């Protein structure tokens, strides 16, 4: 039982943590003070390197060998943690505090059955074997795993990602701890699965009364899950307050900057550019006299550099560590407010019809993509949305010619027929279709300098050399705002944002007509993401290039895309203008997807739960592939017949048996909450 004696569940008091690297202590947490009341959910937000994970590990007493607490205190339900003995710490871990982190599959031991691993928690609490087994089954049922007895006998690799995370959560909550720490628990999970997991955590929390420390870089998830939020920058808490208050009325320049980076509330690129935060995150352990945010703050004055601000209370639990907190929202913008946008017009750059791809995998035929037809006009951005198994990556690869499509697929570039594989394509075709990948660490050859990477692209795609190539290279670097002095560097020496700029430059080297952007900002920090998105918008405005933009972040897609295509299990479910798709009436899957994604504004849509897991592409459901999970399923027809892709409105395609008007009527109210426990 968690000890609730009136003391806060967790109290950090001026916590300082440092890592010893090569003999020097480098501070990571520079005095963090926060309190979490019993039963409260507190979100810790920050970008990479701010120290949030370090805080979690410090609390769990699990710092690396070269990490140590250099000052301050950590109190869990009133008990001081910092100087505890190992035995006491172990006791605390088994009873009072638990942690769940990213990548649930790796958190489970692959060689031990689930049942044994879960029962271990109860054995530690003193239960005999049989009782432990029973309680394990009970807790699995609590996390909404149907047929827990069967799952107990399984090994981790036999479960899906969502189920694995449920098991991990079960293990964490089995001991009914006072504090549960969650460190990016849903990063990497599909949107619908993530929504399930988050909802589960919220329910269990209110049932058990556990306090939660939720660590994430994703502000929207925090907005959904947490009552209070603390913003961490360079190891210092710069603002803290109630979630609603903080996001609606931020009072620290960093928070203001962060919120401006994120496309909120249906913001579109023609309305307003995303703002960015200039400069780079400070290096680990750097000396930062005065306010930690000075170097990047648009409001910085002399006093900021010399004197660190106190944590000013602003009433109602809202505090800000800024000398000029009342001016925070008038932080000058980095990027100009509006952008000139060209409307896409003209004949389509790229047109595909009946695009399909079937793989052979372990003897099965796997239809990764089936009967997809889209067209993209010059200067247009088509957003591609879907979860794992939807086929969006496959589509991109087919367009680029990296794999060959099935028979019957048609592809046209600028009206002429496009050969299916890249080796058959002409030089002009090749340079017309390029890609920006998600992870610039893998997308750039680590052993080549930037100059070589871009130079080679220019040589191969434009067939230029010598002086002309050199001058084009300079122009190219300038167009992506890449400092020419860094051309001799290798990718490993550059920051994430710079690397991605090089990747973009490489894609644009040949003056392409269409660039596929495959999650280009998912690996980047929020402040960097905004700059890259602005760059992409600018390049599109200047050169009239089209984008096929793949992303799981619906806010970003809504910001950038002119039109949106929704894929599910390789089939096109809906295609239309961005606004049309985002507003009802839309496909039931789109409806569910949109309701799963957390937004900063809080819940404006009723939450629709999807039953079950995404089916396997090797064995798709009969008829409409979505019928197994569709909350708006009409009846037998959905199981028997696959609905054709119809133009239900001008420019709006949908694949559903329910007619548009019917959908409009139905989606005015949420579907009836039938909740058979998803397997």
């Amino acid at each position, binding site marked *: 039982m968690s000890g609730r004696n009136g003391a806060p569940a967790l109290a950090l008091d001026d916590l300082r943590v440092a890592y010893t690297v090569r003999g020097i202590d480098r501070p990571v947490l520079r005095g963090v003070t926060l309190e979490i009341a019993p039963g409260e959910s507190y979100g810790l937000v920050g970008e990479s390197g701010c120290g949030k994970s370090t805080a979690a590990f410090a609390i769990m007493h699990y710092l690396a060998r070269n990490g140590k607490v250099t000052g301050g205190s950590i109190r869990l339900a009133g008990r001081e943690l910092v100087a505890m003995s190992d035995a006491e710490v172990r006791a605390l871990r088994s009873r009072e505090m638990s942690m769940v982190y990213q990548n649930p599959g790796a958190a489970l031991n692959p060689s031990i059955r689930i049942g044994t691993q879960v029962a271990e928690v109860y054995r530690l609490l003193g239960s005999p074997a049989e009782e432990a087994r029973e309680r394990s089954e009970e807790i699995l049922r609590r996390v909404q795993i149907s047929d827990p007895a069967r799952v107990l006998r399984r090994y981790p690799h036999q479960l899906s990602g969502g189920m694995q995370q449920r098991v991990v959560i079960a293990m964490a909550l089995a001991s009914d701890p006072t504090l549960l720490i969650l460190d990016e628990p849903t990063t990497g999970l599909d949107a619908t699965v993530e929504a399930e997991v988050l909802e589960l955590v919220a329910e269990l929390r209110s049932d058990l009364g556990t306090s939660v420390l939720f660590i994430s870089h994703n502000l929207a998830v925090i907005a959904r899950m947490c009552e209070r939020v603390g913003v961490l920058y360079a190891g210092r808490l710069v603002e803290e307050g109630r979630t609603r208050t903080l996001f609606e009325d931020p009072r620290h320049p960093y928070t203001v900057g962060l919120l401006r980076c994120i496309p909120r509330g249906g913001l579109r690129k023609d309305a307003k550019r995303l703002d960015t935060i200039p400069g780079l995150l400070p290096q680990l352990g750097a000396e930062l006299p005065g306010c930690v945010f000075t170097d990047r703050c648009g409001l910085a004055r002399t006093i900021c550099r010399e004197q660190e601000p106190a944590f000013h209370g602003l009433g109602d639990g809202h505090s800000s560590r800024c000398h000029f907190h009342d001016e925070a929202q008038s932080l000058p913008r980095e990027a100009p407010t509006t952008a000139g946008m060209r409307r896409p017009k003209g004949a389509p750059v790229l047109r595909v019809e009946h695009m399909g791809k079937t793989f052979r995998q372990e003897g099965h035929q796997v239809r990764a993509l089936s009967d997809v037809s889209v067209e993209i006009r010059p200067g247009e951005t088509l957003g591609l949305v879907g979860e794992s198994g939807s086929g969006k990556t496959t589509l991109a690869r087919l367009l680029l010619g990296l794999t060959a499509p099935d028979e019957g697929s048609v592809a046209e570039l600028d009206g002429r027929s496009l050969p299916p594989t*890249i080796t058959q394509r002409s030089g002009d075709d090749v340079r017309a279709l390029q890609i920006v*990948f998600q992870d610039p660490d893998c*997308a750039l050859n680590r052993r080549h300098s930037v100059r070589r990477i871009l130079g080679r692209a220019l040589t191969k795609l434009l067939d230029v050399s010598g002086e002309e190539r050199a001058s084009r290279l300079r122009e190219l670097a300038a167009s992506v705002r890449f400092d020419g002095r860094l051309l001799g560097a290798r990718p490993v020496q550059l920051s994430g944002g710079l690397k991605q700029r090089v990747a973009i430059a490489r894609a644009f080297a040949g003056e392409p007509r269409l660039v596929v952007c495959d999650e280009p900002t998912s690996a980047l920090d929020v402040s960097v993401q905004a700059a890259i998105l602005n760059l992409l918008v600018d390049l599109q405005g200047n050169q009239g290039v089209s984008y096929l933009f793949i992303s799981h972040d619906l806010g970003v897609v809504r910001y950038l895309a002119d039109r949106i295509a929704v894929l599910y299990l390789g089939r096109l479910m809906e295609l239309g203008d961005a606004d049309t798709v985002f507003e009802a009436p839309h496909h039931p899957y789109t409806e569910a997807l949109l309701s799963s994604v957390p937004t900063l504004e809080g819940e404006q849509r009723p939450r629709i739960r999807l039953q079950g897991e995404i089916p396997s592409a090797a064995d798709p459901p009969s008829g409409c592939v979505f019928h197994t999970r569709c909350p708006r399923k009409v009846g037998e027809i959905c199981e028997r017949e696959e609905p054709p892709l119809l133009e239900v409105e001008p420019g709006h395609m949908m694949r559903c048996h329910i007619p548009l008007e019917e959908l409009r009527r139905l989606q005015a109210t949420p579907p009836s909450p039938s909740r058979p426990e998803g397997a």
Partner: protein
Amino acid sequence: MSRPEEQVILAEHPVPEAPPEERDEARLARRERLRLLARSKTFLAGVFLFGVFVFCAIFGPAVVPYDPFGAPTDLLDKLQPPSTEHLFGTDQLGRDVFSRVVVGARDILAVSVAATLLGVVLGAALGLVTGYFRGVIDEVLMRIVDAFLAVPLVILATVALVALGPSKGTLIVVIGIVFAPIIARTVRAAVLSERELEYVEAARLRNERAPYIMFAEILPNVTAPIVVEFTVRLGYAIFAIATLTFLGFGVQPPSPDWGLQIKENYVILNGGYWWPTLFPALAIALLVVSINLIADGLTRVVEA
């Protein structure tokens, strides 16, 4: 209670040594690697030891006090224990053991380096091709590799040498060819993981030809494992050559090769004449150890 997480944390929070204004960043990274190497005591010890042997190999015949092949008059001095005149004593034919050991470095180093080099060049090429293309070529070649691996090196080499006649040239070719598939396997593994990375796809999207992708894009990224393989195989080569020579199928007399010296002299161990056997044995041991120290140091740096 030790927490095994030091390396993980370091990777997440890289601490650059130089200020960010440093523009010559490429050289910075290489300097960092060299600094790590230089700090490794094992690596330095290995290099030093190996250097001693290289010196012996190159300058040996010029600096030794006595003629390693022996003059007829030396027979009177046979089987003298170590003394100030003969540091390592004399052998059955009156030859100075110290001189023989020093000069013996040349043959074994020359042959082993040549053989390993041959193996690495062939193996790397093979590994690149099979790793990149996969398919039928890959299957067939890997089966052949497995066949080669089935029979231990020493036995396979023995059969080959008996069939072809033992000589330095044969030794180099045989060992080189036997090494090639084994090295190819390691290179292939590295290539397999590289080719999945997106920069290879980006190259294909420029319609680059296969040879360009293999040699200009992938090869620079697999040089590290190749270098490590080279040093590891060099150790095995010396090991194998010494054993084969000991058995009589490698380098032939009257070469002062260490394996031969042991072969010729171990039978008289029972009579208490330990020195003609011990010193060549130590030489072999130290040479291989030095190479393994270098290999170990390199592996640690490469993995970091």
